[in-house]
């Protein structure tokens, strides 16, 4: 092992031009973002709302979008540019694998889902024959609690969202990657199954030594899963650090606003009390708030 960090993101940016045929106004989707994933496997979460730049950032790490500024190095070698060191496509796809948000869109409805796993094994030259590919697929499926036998010949409509996302994870594991970039991987999964997928990620980190970049708008799963959290807003990382520190003691106003907007069970929004106080004299139904109002005035 070289000892180089898995991923070094150094002052990267991505500018789009908005409006106008010649030039137009520059728009920074990602602006001067830096972070490092150490050699030891970790979960690094990037949390932000829509338009924060988190998906553009993920796409740059996945080499689907070229940064307009800065550099990204994977295990010490540049992702982009023309240098001889640059990682070629096959090697890159063996090292870095994506998991997308919507498994119903990631897989075709007209192909048996096993085809994707077999093709991944063959395309990435993990297997030389179909039989070897089935073997590789089966091994990957077993590490997510499934088997090739269970999915053989089946189509996506025969699986639940949770099962499909497990299969997505298995597909990503086929080349034994170093890094998985998961963009909102559980937002389409029902709540009762969501945590089993999140726990599966943690298990993969521990047992397979894979690092994760977990892109999400959901602060609570980020808090639960990650070793390191970065909060993004308007293309910039406004705050980053250990989840316990950042989410328990947010120093940025934006992070506090995000936290206050989560509909948490057990902590009712104070604004609701204000609305109730304002309309309390008109409320006849809700004994509680009417009583409270009376008590305050008696």
């Amino acid at each position: 092992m070289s000892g180089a960090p898995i991923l070094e993101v150094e002052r990267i940016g991505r500018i789009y031009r908005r409006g106008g045929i010649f030039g137009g106004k520059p728009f920074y989707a990602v602006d001067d973002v830096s972070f490092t994933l150490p050699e030891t496997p970790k979960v690094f979460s990037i949390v932000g709302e829509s338009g924060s730049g988190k998906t553009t950032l993920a796409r740059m790490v996945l080499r689907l979008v070229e940064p307009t500024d800065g550099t990204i190095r994977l295990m010490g070698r540049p992702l982009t540019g023309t240098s001889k060191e640059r990682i070629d496509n096959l090697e890159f796809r063996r090292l870095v694998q994506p998991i997308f948000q919507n498994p119903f869109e990631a897989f075709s409805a007209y192909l048996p889902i096993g085809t994707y796993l077999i093709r991944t094994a063959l395309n990435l030259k993990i297997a030389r024959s179909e039989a070897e590919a089935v073997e590789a697929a089966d091994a990957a499926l077993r590490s997510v609690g499934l088997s090739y036998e269970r999915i053989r010949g089946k189509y996506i409509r025969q699986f639940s969202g949770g099962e499909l996302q497990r299969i997505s994870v298995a597909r990503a594991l086929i080349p034994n990657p170093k890094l998985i970039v998961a963009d909102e991987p559980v937002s389409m999964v029902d709540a009762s199954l969501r945590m089993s997928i999140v726990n599966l990620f943690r298990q993969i980190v521990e047992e397979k030594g894979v690092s994760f970049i977990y892109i999400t708008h959901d602060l609570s799963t980020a808090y639960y899963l990650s070793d390191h959290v970065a909060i993004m807003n308007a293309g910039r990382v406004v705050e980053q650090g250990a989840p316990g520190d950042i989410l328990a003691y947010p120093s940025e106003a934006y992070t506090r606003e995000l936290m206050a907007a989560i509909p948490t069970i057990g902590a009712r929004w104070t604004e609701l009390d204000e609305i109730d106080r304002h309309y309390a004299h008109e409320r006849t139904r809700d004994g509680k708030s009417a009583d409270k109002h009376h008590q305050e005035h008696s």
Partner: protein
Amino acid sequence: MIKVDNVTVGYGTTAFVKAVDRVNLTINDNEILGIAGESGSGKSTLMRAIYGDFSTGLRIASGTITGRFARNGTGAVTEAESHDFGQLWWDQISYIPQGSMSVLNPLMKVEKQVVDGLPKRERQGNRAELRRRIATFLEGFGLEESVLDAFPHQLSGGMRQRVLVAIAAFVNPRLILADEPTTALDVVVQKKILLMMVEIQRRQRNSLVLVSHDLGVHYQITDRLVVMYQGKIVEAGPTAGIFANPQHEYTQTLIASLPRIDGTRAEARR
């Protein structure tokens, strides 16, 4: 005000697919009722049957849904059965859908879409005065008059959804049905819209039915909660009571499966 009596709802006539199975439910005046459940639980189908929208091949196989609508102030009462609710849309019953882009016409300015949706009694009379009234109503929720002159794509997703909520409330309906109204939105915008809906309900003292898969949303704003699982209501009661002491195993699982920021972390279990 609405009584759902032993109702079974499904799709198709030759091959009937059951989505809601023998459900009993009452929607009271002046309350926010939540319907919780995961995908395939039947919550949206039940909502559509209550709205009386049978255009998608929806069919009530057995049971009845009846409504009794008392107009504010006048004391006039309308009684109807859900197959006739269509006549009450945008008058006594309003609907807030999930995707604001798919219901607003992209080629029409917001003002025209609002006016076209209004019942006849509202549309009669002076157009300029009507616009003034709509603008004043929107301003009451922090929306500027200029949104009326915008095409839907010129507004952000959150802004569009707030406009839809305002349109739904403008006619002062007795019943507002909202199907996952904030699901596609960010939490900060979601909170704004939920607070807006609560304020409307408190002001108009009507009934709001909120369908959401998000238990946190139900905890925040609903007075009573119904939990659906595989087409059946597995638990119903005051929201606070259900969260304090969930009876059904499925509800317990749902509540327990939510990670909390002050709770345990996966990494800490090692």
